[in-house]
């Protein structure tokens, strides 16, 4: 047995922290040591804890420790009604709360066979794409900051604020939206919605150019990200990665394209894929995804129809006995929502397949052999949200 309980870990007595094997891959002459990164560390973006096995600055192994924000959302969901559960999905990946809501609502709609009016579908698509841009903007700022360029953080937030304002005007909240309901959304769009989106589209075109000049083109940034954390196609698939992490490795899989939900099949957009799957590929891919989302928004704004925004409304939803699954493409990858219903007002079991969790598992594969500073780069481009890891 290689593993020891973490409480017994005493480095002075030659102890090994939980998750590491006694045998080391380092050379005999090196003096390896363990470094605890997090749960309070600026670049683990929350309360993720990593235990690193280092030889000087070189990484020999990484073991992530999860569970610091485990709230048992899946268990809580069993004790709440279907409608109440929608607001729990806000708290999975709080940067794509609209998309999470959509995933859950779609599972319910599937069960109850609820149709969505045309306008409702358009609202959903537009909001989801706004949410994707908003999430990517935050990621762009934060990943720049992880690499030491603090200014990008504030530039990213500057544009993000416009989108957050749209959400606030629309549903009154800026982070935990709880906007979508089975059959549409709880309110129609406001008068300012379309003009504001047009403004965002205009600004995003300029902003993306600016981002490319400031960070993408920067020689230091390219040196820091190119050929770091290369993820092969096979590894990415075998670990069940999704989203930009998978696509950067050259696998063209986007739920919006491969398994179109809502009305995504009506819009023209490309699924960008990377070539070798290093940090720079993952980065460029996300920038390109923002451009593609802007493209979808441009089309949706043109053809935004009039009409009802929600099909039907019930006080209590009771899903017929059976199991229901829906999947959506959040800003981070594939979010699967699986509901097992027994006919009552509360689900028997709810399972969320969160993208961040699968994407984080490859960390050890990517980090070994690189420097300590590269772990931060890899973490930044994996783009996880810690509450989405733990749920």
């Amino acid at each position: 047995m290689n593993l020891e309980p973490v409480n017994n870990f005493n480095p002075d007595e030659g102890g090994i922290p939980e998750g590491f094997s006694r045998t080391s891959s380092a050379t005999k002459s090196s003096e390896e040591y363990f470094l605890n990164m997090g749960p309070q560390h600026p670049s683990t973006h929350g309360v993720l804890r990593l235990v690193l096995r280092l030889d000087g600055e070189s990484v020999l192994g990484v073991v992530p420790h999860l569970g610091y924000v485990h709230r048992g959302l899946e268990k809580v969901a069993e004790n709440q009604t279907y409608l109440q559960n929608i607001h729990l999905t806000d708290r999975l990946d709080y940067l794509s709360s609209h998309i999470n809501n959509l995933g859950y609502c779609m599972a319910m709609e599937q069960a109850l066979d609820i149709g969505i009016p045309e306008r409702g579908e358009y609202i959903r698509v537009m909001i989801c794409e706004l949410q994707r841009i908003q999430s990517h903007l935050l990621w762009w700022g934060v990943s720049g900051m992880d690499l030491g360029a603090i200014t990008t953080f504030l530039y990213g937030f500057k544009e993000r604020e416009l989108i957050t304002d749209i959400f606030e005007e629309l549903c009154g909240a800026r982070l935990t939206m709880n906007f979508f309901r089975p059959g549409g959304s709880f309110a129609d769009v406001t008068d300012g919605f379309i003009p504001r989106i047009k403004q965002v589209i205009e600004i995003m075109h300029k902003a993306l150019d600016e981002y490319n000049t400031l960070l993408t083109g920067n020689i230091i940034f390219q040196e820091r990200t190119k050929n770091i954390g290369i993820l092969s196609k096979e590894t990415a698939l075998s670990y069940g990665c999704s989203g930009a992490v998978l696509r950067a490795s050259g696998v063209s899989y986007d739920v919006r394209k491969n398994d179109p939900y809502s009305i995504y099949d009506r819009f023209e957009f490309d699924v960008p894929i990377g070539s070798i799957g290093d940090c720079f590929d993952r980065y460029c891919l996300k920038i390109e995804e923002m451009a593609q989302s802007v493209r979808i928004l441009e089309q949706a704004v043109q053809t935004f129809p009039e009409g009802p925004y929600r099909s039907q409304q019930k006080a209590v939803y009771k899903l017929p006995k059976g199991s229901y699954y829906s999947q959506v493409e959040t800003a981070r990858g594939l979010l699967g929502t699986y509901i097992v219903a027994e006919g009552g007002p509360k689900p028997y079991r709810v399972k969320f397949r969160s993208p961040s969790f699968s994407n984080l598992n490859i960390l050890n594969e990517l980090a070994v052999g690189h420097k300590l500073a590269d772990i931060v780069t890899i973490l930044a481009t994996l783009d996880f949200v810690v509450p989405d890891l733990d749920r």
Partner: protein
Amino acid sequence: MKKQACCAYLSKVVMGFISLLRGMGVTIGYFFSPKKIVTQQYPENRESLQMMARFRGHVSMPHNEKGEHFCTACGICEKTCPNGTISVLATKDLSGRKVLGKYIYRFSQCTLCNLCIESCPFGAIVMGKDFEFAVYDREELIFTLNQTQENANG
């Protein structure tokens, strides 16, 4: 061959240098344009702050001039709330009808999910626009939303 490698190296250095200069061009653009500043001076601009019409600040119960509200103490909001935030304490008036006695709202437990407002059949509760709720004691976050004898005077 060697000359080519040397040229590639030098051009990489020059291009890298230019890329740095271009980045510096972006930041200096911001430095010399105060119009791009997005910061708001928050407590100072409190007077001119405009909250969005649908802003979800807290649950409140609107009253008319006579101090009347629409709540019938049906308790649907209490049932809809995912967190046990709301307690509707019904009482009977002189004619024996069920009326609202006390509408207790525990702001410290509220996730502002809007479900109670949606479920209310009478439109008796709405989302308020206030957001400055920092207090020193959690007890201070338990509100009675309807105007009763005691809190109407006080």
